[in-house]
């Protein structure tokens, strides 16, 4: 029974992964990822990690993916074919991915580690339960816990900084020119001014940042 469930979940995960990579429309790619995440949650359950599975569904598939959906809806994913500036990448990338796959398999499966042939350690009722997770977080991994929360704070502040508007409504004619609209040497000023100057005077070798 467990094997059947495993195969279904694994197939779902891999299908979702391929979908993310292969689908043209960004929206469909997000949905593929959601499917992939749910399959992964199933796999976690099969591995007896209930709390992590729940967290995966609630946090990842729930919050993070919703965030993605919002952004995709705002930005819009145009259909873009894989027509990079170098066709060579189209061939090289999958090739190296396959090579990497082979290496990883050899590394993990061929490593002679006996335990991976088994089903894992003995059954422990508290394994994977929230109680065990909580206890570990607050004793053995307290530092990681605190740093993770700090990281979340930093990310939140950063996101606010990045996405805020500078002035008024940002539609129509943008008038973000500063009073000192003098030509600036390359690579100086804030990022906004650098970006603007690139657009205003046209890109060119001026921005090459020369000697």
């Amino acid at each position, binding site marked *: 029974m467990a094997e059947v469930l495993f195969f279904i979940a694994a197939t779902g995960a891999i299908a979702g992964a391929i979908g993310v990579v292969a689908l043209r429309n960004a929206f469909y790619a997000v949905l593929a990822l959601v499917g992939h995440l749910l399959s992964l949650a199933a796999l976690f359950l099969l591995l007896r990690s209930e709390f992590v599975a729940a967290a995966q569904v609630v946090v990842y598939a729930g919050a993070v993916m919703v965030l993605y959906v919002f952004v995709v809806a705002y930005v819009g994913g145009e259909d873009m074919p894989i027509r990079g500036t*170098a066709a060579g990448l189209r061939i090289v*990338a999958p090739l190296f991915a396959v090579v990497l796959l082979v290496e990883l398999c050899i590394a993990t499966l061929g490593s002679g580690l006996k335990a991976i042939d088994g089903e894992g350690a003995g059954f422990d009722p508290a394994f994977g339960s929230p109680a065990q997770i909580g206890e570990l977080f607050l004793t053995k991994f307290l530092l990681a816990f605190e740093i993770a929360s700090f990281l979340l704070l930093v990310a939140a502040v950063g996101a606010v900084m990045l996405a805020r508007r500078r002035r008024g409504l940002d539609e129509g004619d943008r008038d973000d020119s500063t009073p000192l609209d003098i030509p600036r040497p390359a690579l100086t000023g804030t990022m906004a001014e650098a970006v603007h100057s690139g657009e205003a005077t046209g890109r060119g070798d001026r921005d090459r940042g020369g000697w």
Partner: protein
Amino acid sequence: MSATTYGWLVLAFPLAGTVVISLLYRRLPGRTAGWIGTAAIGLSFLASVGALLALLDHPHEERQLVSSLYDYASTAGVDGQLSILIDPLSVFMMLVVSGVSALIHLYSVSYLASDRGYSRFFAYLNFFVFSMLLLVEAGNFLMLIVGWAFVGAASYLLISFWYRRTTATGAGIKAFVINVIGDVGLVLGTYFIFKHVGTLDFLATFERVPDEFSTNQGDLVAGCVLLLVGAFAKSAQIPLHTWLPDAMEGPTPVSALIHAATMVTAGVYLIARMHPLFEQAPAAADVGAVVGCLTLIVAATIGLAATDLKRVIAYSTMSQIGYMIMGVSAGAYAAGLFHLMTHAFFKALLFMAAGSLIGAMAGVQSLDRMSGFRRAMPFTFGCFVIGGLALAGVPPFSGFFSKDEILLLVGERGGWHWILYVVGYIGAFLTAVYTFRMIFRAFLGEPVDEARELEQGHVHHADVPRNPANDEEEDTDVGFPGPEHHIAERAGEMRGAMAVLAVGAVVAGVLQVPGTTHVIESFLEPTFAESRLFEAETSTGLTVLGLVLGTVLGLGGIAVAYRLWVQRPDAPARIRERLSAPYRLFANKWYFDELYDAAIVRPGAALGRFAQETFERVFVDRALIGGATGIVRAGSSAVRSAQTGFLRYYAALLLLGLTGLALYFLLVS
């Protein structure tokens, strides 16, 4: 106090004077710097007298005392110490240097009184006296070289004292460059000697010379000739003499002190001090004698044709130093040093009087414009006459006895030294002629306007100050001479100094009359104890011949000058026309400057131009530097091309790297 303590004091006073004046130069009002400088040298002279008395307390054989203050480096076989040697020779030089310097300082107190650079002058002058005393008191080659170099530096500073005059700065550079050639000779010569002797200390060196060197051994001759190069550069002997006439650009006290009495005598001192080396290498000594003789006759001929007052006196200095060099090279040490002393007296006197005369002429130095100052400046005239008689070698003035003693001992050597003897007396005749040519032209005859003004009691002042050499306009601010001109008749300090020197020029002869008194010789005997040539026997016949010949030539020269420039004033012009080729040779200073310009200066400048335009521009700038930067730029642009800015490339490279790493680890394990 011991003699060596006095020796250190002699050095300390001028050094203190320099430091005090240099640090306080802005705050010293009026003539204070002058009095501080004079007091410093005066104290130094008193300390020299003290050293003399202390030295005389020692028994005759023990009069060579060394005192070492500091050990710079005693490693690798080189013993570098800060040490002085107090022996009769150095005490003699100390007395002459500090005595004459003190009088010249006194003279300068009023001579430069209105100059904006007054304090700077006395700081430099004190520094010069310190360096010269260091040179004569040096106890080893190291301190000698240090003193030698300092003296050259002080000479440069003082020649270009009026530094806004381009002629003065050019002259200073010329003097310095030629001095450096001498410095190189001195240092290389020291090396050649040190190579065999193994020590820098004088007394130890002199002891080892007979053992380490055979007579006229190659290294010793080379070393001595190189030392002679140093002596010739410092003492303005041919061929390194071209700086001395130009050095007259400095103020007159500088000419009096440095280029008459002290610095140019450093070469004479060097040869006398190194006499054990020169006696072991007679070939080098002969070179010195020949060059000295050559210089004295060439300088005398140029003096006949020169028209600038100070330059006539400069050439007479060159000529007299030629006598001294010839003397000490031929073994007449006491005579040569005695002539050094008397020459210091009368030459400093002549320069001081010349300074007074130039002051009356408001800075003009050309003999062509001077005439008839006898009634206007009696004191100056008297000093000129006394100095001139001493220079011309007329008894009983001191110059007669000293010059005669040298020529006597040179003739006594015999062999080819007779040529030097004859040339020396010809030079004496010419000396009398040109000296009194100068005096008669300046003081007798019709008074010029400046003289008439002075007779009415008013010193002439030019409306626009001008450079006497090239008539450029100047002002009287710092870097140029001051607005006032001082003459001896008006300034007590100048008169006092000149009077003392005049007395010395007259009476000093009694110290060493040939054949009779031997004060100098017996005083210097401990230094020259092991010399073969020092106490040479002189035959009475030659002595009498020399005295008579000297007197006749001296008076005869004065008579010739009187006839040509006073009785028959048109005669010199006629002689000049008839002997126009020799006249041009003499007037152009035997074309030495032109020769050096063509042989050394122009090729040097051409080499410099080639180096800059061709070598520097093409090779260094384009090939070396351009090549290096080009390689760096090419390399960095090659590396830069990897930074394409495409995210996917970077990601692909990451992936590639990861794959490679994993492969490596797989294979390794």
